């Protein structure tokens, strides 16, 4: 496989969730979420109940992938920041460490300048945590829970 397995443990999850929640407050945003580059949702905070975060996660990842493809054609390493402005809602998308994507959805209650400033700070913290997380996942002794499953377990999933 070309990339290491992404694994999320309780300790790191709480740290990440803390940063995301803090970012919602500090930037006065509606929703903040973090996804991996494949579109899997890692953490979310704010007014998420009204939002289809799974779909948003997959579309954001597609967006980042497409932008990354354009960057490559222009011999750029990556475009790390994107901003989409709407009539009522705006989206700020930031690539962190080429690994995860930090998405902030906000309205007129705050400003792009403030969001950018707070995102920058949050990125520094997130970068450290994800580096630790990747190192931890590569250590021996953190076996996948799937090592113990049997063929029968897998078959049972499809008995409907």
């Amino acid at each position, binding site marked *: 496989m070309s990339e290491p397995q992404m694994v999320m443990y309780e300790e790191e999850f709480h740290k990440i969730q803390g940063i995301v929640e803090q970012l919602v407050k500090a930037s006065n945003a509606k929703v903040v979420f973090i996804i991996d580059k494949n579109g899997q949702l890692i953490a979310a905070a704010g007014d998420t109940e009204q939002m289809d975060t799974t779909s948003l996660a997959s579309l954001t990842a597609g967006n980042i992938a497409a932008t990354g493809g354009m960057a490559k054609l222009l011999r750029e390493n990556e475009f790390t920041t994107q901003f989409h402005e709407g009539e009522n809602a705006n989206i700020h998308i930031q690539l962190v460490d080429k690994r995860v994507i930090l998405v902030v959805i906000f309205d007129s209650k705050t400003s792009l300048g403030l969001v950018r400033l707070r995102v920058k700070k949050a990125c520094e913290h997130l970068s450290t945590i994800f580096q630790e997380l990747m190192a931890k996942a590569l250590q021996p002794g953190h076996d996948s829970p799937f090592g*113990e499953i049997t063929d029968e377990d897998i078959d049972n999933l499809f008995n409907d």
Partner: protein
Amino acid sequence: MSFINYLSREINCKIVYYGPGLCGKTANLQYIYGKTNPQARGKMISLATETERTLFFDFLPLALGEIRGFKTRFHLYTVPGQVFYDASRKLILKGVDGVVFVADSQLARIEANMESMDNLRSNLIEQGYSLDNLPYVVQYNKRDMPSIAPVEELRTMINGGNVPDFEAVAINGTGVFDTLKAVAKLVLTELKKAGSR
């Protein structure tokens, strides 16, 4: 690249439907969407042109059930089949855990199938994967059409690796779930192998 979340006890995997233009990749997802309990699936997203040809991808999140207390979630994606969308196809293959190759059984599409299979192989290599090591299955779609190639012939041409293969008519659902179950099983078996290494 699957994603294991120990906190929410979830495992997420990505399956990509690949194949030549108009072979029925989107039709597979539409059928699955229509026949799955709404609680077990999310919204289906299609980024398509005005003429309903896939432009970037279709996306369907699906929950299959629990294994040993872990919820298994599959994210199904299709690629745009038309030859000139190759840059988009490469992007969608990133982080793939399993592939379904949907072949068009019609005689007139034999060459298109082979071209798409070659394209899949080379795009996977570019992403650092090899089709020989990746869970994948083949579906011979459009078995209801009048001038189709015999399955044996299609098998020789595009299933040299002898992976599980299925005859299908995606628009009425024939073979759709058999194909999905087979690839999901292979993906989970691969996770099991990786976990016990």
